[in-house]
């Protein structure tokens, strides 16, 4: 029905989609599975007309077509639900539906039972917004519904409701494209699963009867993560079986660690647009990596900013048993706490600045970069040259505008900067997200070097595999609370996964 042929899309040097082909038949649920950065979202946006491919062809019922805008796609019966909702927070549910072209005074059945219609979008829960978003996408009675990671912010009960809804839509003959990086969800609801890796189509599995045969998951995992050409297993320890977990090896034997950083009973008040923290306590030892794992938006960002000294909160934060003044980021920094933000382009870097200027941000007032209020360009340049060669940053010119750097190189700049600040603790928020395998290896190598020198790391990640692979202890963050950190060991994976989506 809808067919994409050899779609290619590149952003600068990265190829998001490399000659991808996908055909969608009526009345089926197609899963598109892949890691973060595999090119799933780009493919979906191209199918929805939101992005134009560099080359390739779209076929609608066998005829060649092109979607110049989402409107073209809607006319052709293709509707999309984006990962980041396209909802207007100041609108009511009713107004939002009317904007989408819903003409009746009554809300559609999907929403009618949940809402009166006068609720503001900004006030309802994320799960409810997802429902509104899907109802919105269904207004135009599409024949193909595209869903981009629809379950990432849903509770397990909400996910199940969504699956029931999708199966119902399938019964009515609608096709659904379901993009996810969650293997089991894909297997639960999809009739066919396409696996993408690094922008390439690496395999497709189809099963006509309900329930996928055993061993499918292992096969899909192999497809998803593959192996690098040069033999380094960048993503190989994506541990999904107990055997592999045992095989996980940190090179050094476990050291006796003293407590380095300690958070006690930290709480914040409710604030629109952010998750309140509820009596969070945790501690990080010297040379230890502690991971806080959770699905997006459970308060990781809020907790990270409190731990880095940026946000005010009730409770106490200790570094080496000395209480730190919460909310005074400068004091935290001087105490040797560094914060590697996940918002690399937003708060991590100053867009108009050069590489060297970004490298000294936060330390611009310190020796040797300045003296009595005057910058010392020579020292700044020397430092930049040093870091560029140590981290193999491209381009090598310290005066290159930061916006000309690729995402991986920007992350190297940020990590170089933060590690120069971190003498005791590094708080890292999704440090390897969106990085290629080489950079990821480099980033983790540097972090490991830091822990070898008795530094502690508080890692926030949405990727449970990363947490299990890299951390010594793992806790789960769910709706603003953190579970007690437990040492990584056999059999904790399923508990963690359960807590991530359902709390405790």
């Amino acid at each position, binding site marked *: 029905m809808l067919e994409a042929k050899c779609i290619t899309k590149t*952003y600068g040097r990265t190829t998001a989609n490399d000659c991808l082909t996908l055909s969608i038949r009526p009345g089926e649920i197609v899963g598109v599975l892949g890691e973060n950065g595999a090119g799933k979202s780009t493919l979906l946006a191209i199918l929805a007309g939101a992005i134009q491919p560099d080359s390739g062809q779209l076929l609608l019922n066998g005829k060649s077509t092109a979607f110049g805008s989402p409107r073209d796609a809607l006319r052709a019966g293709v509707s999309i639900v984006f990962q980041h909702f396209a*909802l*207007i927070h100041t609108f009511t549910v009713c107004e939002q539906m009317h904007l989408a072209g819903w003409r009746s005074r009554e809300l559609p059945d999907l929403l009618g039972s949940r809402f009166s219609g006068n609720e503001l979008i900004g006030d309802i829960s994320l799960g409810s917004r997802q429902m509104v978003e899907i109802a919105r996408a269904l*207004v135009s009675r599409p024949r193909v519904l595209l869903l981009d990671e629809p379950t990432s912010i849903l509770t397990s009960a909400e996910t199940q409701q969504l699956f029931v809804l999708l199966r119902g839509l399938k019964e009515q003959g609608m096709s659904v494209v379901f993009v996810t990086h969650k293997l089991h969800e894909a297997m639960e609801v999809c009739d066919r699963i396409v696996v993408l890796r690094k922008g390439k189509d690496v395999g497709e599995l189809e099963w006509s009867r309900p329930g996928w045969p055993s061993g499918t998951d292992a096969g899909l995992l192999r497809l998803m993560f593959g192996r690098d050409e040069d033999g380094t297993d960048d993503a190989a320890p994506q541990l999904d079986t107990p055997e592999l977990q045992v095989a996980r090896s940190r090179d050094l034997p476990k050291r006796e660690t003293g407590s380095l950083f300690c958070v006690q009973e930290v709480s914040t008040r409710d604030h629109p647009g952010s998750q309140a923290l509820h009596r969070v306590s945790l501690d990080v030892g010297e040379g230890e990596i502690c991971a806080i794992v959770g699905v997006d938006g459970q308060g990781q960002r809020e907790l990270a900013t409190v731990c880095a000294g940026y946000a005010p909160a009730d409770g106490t934060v200790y570094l080496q048993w000395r209480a730190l003044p919460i909310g005074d980021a400068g004091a935290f920094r001087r105490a040797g706490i560094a914060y590697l933000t996940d918002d690399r382009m937003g708060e991590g870097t100053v867009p108009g600045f050069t590489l060297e200027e970004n490298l000294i941000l936060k330390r611009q007032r310190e020796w040797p970069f300045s003296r009595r209020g005057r910058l010392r360009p020579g020292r700044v340049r020397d430092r930049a040259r040093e870091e560029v060669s140590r981290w193999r940053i491209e381009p090598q010119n310290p005066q290159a505008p930061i916006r000309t750097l690729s995402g991986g190189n920007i992350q190297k700049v940020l990590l170089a900067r933060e590690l120069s600040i971190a003498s005791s603790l590094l708080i890292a928020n999704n440090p390897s997200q969106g990085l290629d395998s080489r950079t990821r290896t480099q980033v983790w190598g540097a972090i490991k070097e830091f822990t070898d020198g008795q530094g502690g790391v508080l890692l926030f990640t949405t990727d449970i595999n990363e947490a299990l692979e890299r951390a010594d202890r793992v806790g789960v963050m769910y709706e603003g609370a953190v579970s007690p950190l437990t040492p990584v060991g056999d059999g904790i994976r399923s508990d963690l996964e359960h807590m991530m989506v359902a709390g405790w």
Partner: protein
Amino acid sequence: MNIEAVITVLLSVALLSAVPLALASVGEAVGERAGLLNLGTEGIMLLGAFTGFWVSLESRSLALGLLAGALTGVVSGLLFGVIAVVVGADQVLLGLGITLGGSGLTSFLFRETFGASQPLLPGSMARPPGDLADALPIVGPALLGQPWFFYLAWVIVAGAELMLRGTTLGLRIRAVGESPIAVDTVGISVVSTRMFAAIIAGALSGLAGASLSIVELGFFQPNVTLGTGFIAIALAMLGRWSPWRIAAMAIVFGSLRGLGSGLQLIDVSVQSEFTRMLPYVGVVAALLLSGRGMRAPSALGQTWVRRRGAVRVR
């Protein structure tokens, strides 16, 4: 002169002075609701004031003059829209350019057309029968004795309120100022919605200018608006982008603006500098009192381009 007559005169002047302010401000609010920050309002008002005045002087028709003012506004709004929305230029800079150019152009054309002479429009607009206005004591002339355009203007303001609040078009305009992505996703063109808003905003500003020169003053001179366009921009913000609140604010600031001429009419001598300063001081005071926590349309002043805006690419 007795106190009642003083109130009567002041009230009439205040309500009439509020008209250009309300029209321009509602126009600006419609634009800002769609995410367009048009600092060219002052310039568009001047253009409308000049063409309106010139046409009505030539044609001896006030209605034609007002129409010409509104059409000038449409053309200016179109210009702003094409450059800001279609081409995607910087809105603040563009607005300043339109104000500077509009001021220069009208002054230039005024000198070219009239030289050093200062023509006046004959008489004010036709008044409704006097007995109706005189039936009500004190407030009668202010409410019932105004030129017909006065009443039309408030109908237009009410229409804008209804349009923004109750129609699909209004919904789209508000949506495009909050989240262009959301509008694009549901298949509505961001560009045409914003263009439409820019044209409405321009038309209202042009009409506001014409009403100033034709209805309120009866003459034109270079920079006759004296910052009314900028006050209108402030009022759009103070009235929280809602026409009826703006109308209420416009009456308050119209009174401040008209106070000088009102006091002159009744022979009260106050330093003209002080009365001239009043509306501007009033705006700052009002901003100080209510400026905090004001939530502007989220996409105000932002250029929207699909390839950048629609999808966040990791």
